[in-house]
Each structure stands twice: as structure tokens, then as C-alpha cells.
């Protein structure tokens, strides 16, 4: 399966990954090879077999509606790249 530059750029945008200038030839080549391997998946006849998302059967547990966590805001902000006044700082999104 051929993965070209246009596809690589689209996937990188979806994944929010910046690419270096020199990455493209290696990426197009390696992704093409990977998807050639993965194409086998779409070729197999799975009949009316049900999809399996994970090994466990059953449903997610319910729990009592009680507060079990305590406020650790300061501990979590302490490790943030940029934080101030109890907030994570990011470039402005609203002009």
C-alpha cells in the first residue's frame, strides 16, 4: 500500500505531530511497508464474527456516588510546564 507525502501530512496533522524536513522519505517508505503488512487484515473473511474490543466480558463497574478523591491541584500544577494562579498556561486561543 503506497503512503505518499500528502497522506503522511494529513495523518501528521490529525495526530498533531510536527515533522522534520528530513523525516518524509523515511516515513513514507516505512509507513508504506507497515500498511502493506496491515492490508492482510482487510483481506481476511471474518464472516459474521463479532468484534472484540477487549478480553473481558461484562460491563464497567458502577460505584457509589461518594467523593473519594482529595484536592491535589497544587501537586499537579507543580509539575506543569507553565502554570499560574491555579491554571495551566497555553498560547491564547481567543483574540
Amino acid at each position: 500500500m503506497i503512503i505518499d507525502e500528502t497522506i503522511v501530512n494529513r495523518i501528521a496533522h490529525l495526530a498533531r505531530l510536527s515533522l522534520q524536513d528530513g523525516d518524509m522519505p523515511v516515513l513514507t517508505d516505512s509507513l508504506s511497508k507497515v500498511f502493506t503488512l496491515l492490508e492482510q487484515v482487510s483481506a481476511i473473511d471474518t464472516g459474521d464474527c463479532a468484534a472484540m474490543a477487549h478480553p473481558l466480558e461484562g460491563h464497567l463497574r458502577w460505584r457509589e456516588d461518594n467523593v473519594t478523591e482529595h484536592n491535589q491541584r497544587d501537586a499537579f500544577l507543580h509539575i506543569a510546564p507553565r502554570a499560574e494562579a491555579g491554571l495551566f498556561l497555553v498560547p491564547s486561543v481567543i483574540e
Partner: protein
Amino acid sequence: MHHMTIAQLSRELANKTFSSVELTQHFIDRIKQYDPTLNSFITVTEAQALSAAKAADAVRAAGKAGILTGIPIAQKDIFCTQGVKTSCGSKMLDNFISPYNATLIEKCNAAGLVMLGKTNMDEFAMGSSNETSFYGSVKNPWETAYVPGGSSGGSAAAVAARLAPCATGTDTGGSIRQPAALCNLVGLKPTYGRVSRYGMIAFASSLDQAGPMTLTAEDAALLLHAMAGFDEKDSTSIQAPVPDYTAHLNDSLEGLRIGLPQEYFGEGLDPRVGQLIEEAGRCFEKLGAKLVKISLPHTHFSVPAYYVVAPAECSSNLSRFDGVRYGYRCENPIDLEDLYKRSRGEGFGNEVKRRIMVGTYALSAGYYDAFYGKAQKIRQLITQDFKHAFKEVDVILGPTTPNPAFKLGEKKNDPISMYLSDIYTIATNLAGLPGMSLPAGFIDQLPIGMQLIGNYLQEGQLLNVAHRYQQVTDWHTRTPNNYR
């Protein structure tokens, strides 16, 4: 001291032959001496370890020691450890000091284990050679020009070189079992949900499991007992009691039915590896087991199905690394999109970026059904193969890897070849079954592992089979030449 198993060390600590402080210092000295060559540790927590060892000795003096009290352990750097760097082998988390402990770490601490440090690993657990780590490759102590396997390569190398008596690993597609095989260790991936994933940095949430890496099956039984159990904080944690995994170690194998899948002994397997596994089979027959030929017909679809499912899940799990709340942030972002893209582009290594991109594409509009939807159905077929097999047999035996360890750099630029070497381990993760690797011999002085796969929650049976084998063989007692 460093040649002793956990079981032996526990007896000697109880007999006061040495203290936990002395034992811990001994391993720290060995790490300082040998790890500059192996690169198996990212962080060595010397002061913390000696403090924990001192506390363990006090617990023992008060008459309250358990079997694991004071035993040193190396923890894979994928488990959040409060106040200690937790990097996941990545530049993205090079500056991350975890504010909390993973449940597994809490359980190990509660059992009295003494953490020596955090071991090196393939970045975000993506790799089979420990060559993708931001902190450099790990060397195989048996031959340092060769890989130790991955992603738990640091844990494997540390235990194999006797820098720690045991370690933890994680396994998404073979990352405990394969490095265990390449380094002559016992490595056990439990049933999915048996060990809590809370605080274990996620790669593929429906596949990841943590497990022990040890010198013997008996040691794995002791460590798994401490690690396993229901956790409220993990929504995929199984609510089943944890048995005493040592209780049935010595049970007879008389009448045990061991399945040999024809698909595990065909094309692609080094015939010398096949021969060693067949010899192991004959050993089990002498112990009273019966070998049964079985088929797992969808085996050859397990690699492509896994490499859709795992990257798809990783593309979702790794979206949390965006330069906002923790981890690496790029310099001077222009806007929010630039912040996300350059933080992630600069913070992740090439293999991680490749897998994120594979997963993103497989889940994208127009491709979801053809790739991810289909892969989920193949997963069902693979699981049904095992369920049919376990109506005829009790455990399944095969090689862990098609070949012994390969040279550093040999497959670094050939991801497909690397992916295909996971052929025997991957299906176990897709089905959520327990699997373990144990030493089965050597080829050109490189270890080979056999894999045992059990039915759901049958870790005790796997450990019994492995322990009985280790009572009549000595592969597991061997030490690499330069680390005696």
C-alpha cells in the same frame, strides 16, 4: 548474595545471615560497577533504597516480616513512582516526577520490597529490542553486542546480570516474555486484568499487563502473589481472589495435556530453537505429561491484527502528551496547534511517532472499518482458536521467539522484521490469556526461551509446570560470564 533467588534470600534474611541494608548495598555496588556497560537503569534510587532496607530490617526485628520483606527489586520505568522520575524511556517525560504511586508500586512497597531504581525500556513500551529508549540502548549481559529484547529490556538485563534479584515488566505484545527469553529468565504475563494498571503508563489499554521477571518460577510465584489483585482504581481489574501461587508448585504433571500448535513450529522458526522446544516437550513427557498436537489456525493474522489494534489504542492513549499539563513542552509556541505539534514532534522518538501515525490512519474516516473494525473481528477469531484448544489441552507449549537475540542495530531500520519476531507472543495478549517464558537452552551461547500459555486465571498451573521443569533442568541457574 547476587546468585540467590528470592526464596533463598528470604530464608537467609530470616536466618539473619545478612541484613536487608547489606543486601541492598551489595546490589547497589554491583549496579555502579556493571551498569555503565549495560545501561539497564535510568534512575538508581540509592538513598531511598537504603532507607527502605533499613525500615525492612526494623520490621523484621519487630517480628513482622513477610516473605518478601527486605528483598530488592528493580521497577520498570513505566510505573509511576511518587517523587521519583518516571520517564517511560522518553524525552517526553524526561522531566516528569510522578506525584503518585502506581498501585503495583504501592503493593510492592506494602510487601516490603526495596526499590533499587527504575529500569530502562523501549520508549512508551514500543519496541522489541530496547533500542528506542531516549536514554540509549540496553545491552544483553550474555553478549553485549546483542539486544536484551524489549520493551522490558532494562529489567531483563538487570536481573540477568544479577544487578537485582527480580524486576517488574509490562507486556503488550510480548514485552515481558521476549526479553525474558533472550536473557535466560522467567517472565510471566498474567491474565488481562489480574494486575492493576492504575499508574502504569498506558500503551494499549486492552492489551497491557504487568508481571514479574525473575530467575525462577518459584520466585515469579512469590512476586505475582504480591502484585496481583483487584483494584478499585482500575476499571478493568478482575474481581477474583488471588490464590497462593506457591501452593501447587510441586504438584505432579501426571496426565497434564500439553498442546503443541502446528503453526508455532513451521516456517520462520530457527530449526535449532524448534529442536530445543521439542526436547523440552520430551522432558515434560518424562514428568508424566501428554503431548497433543493442536492447531491455532488464525495465528498468522495475529501480527497484522495486533499492529492495527495496538497502534490504534496508542494513538488515543498518547494524545494526553500535549505539552500542557506535564512533560515536554516546545520552546516559544506560536499558537495552541504549534504547541501540540512541536511538543509531540520533538518529544516523541521515531518508533512512537510511527505507531501513533499508523493508529491514527487506521482509525481515520474511510479506513476505520477496513482496518480497526476488521482487526477486532480477527481478535475474536484468535481468541476462539484458544478457547477451542483449551477444550483439548491444559497448557500450550511453544517457542517464545523464532530466533535467539539479534545484534544491536540489526533490525533498527527494519520495523517489519522487528514486528514479525513477535509472532508467538502477540496472540496471547489479543486473547488476554496468561503466558510465560522460561529458559529452555542455549544456541551459540545465547539463551532461548520456551513459552507456556494457560487458560484464563491459570497462572498457578503455568508456574507449576515451569517449576517442575526447573527441578529437572539447570538452564535457569546459569549466569553470564562477566557477571558472576
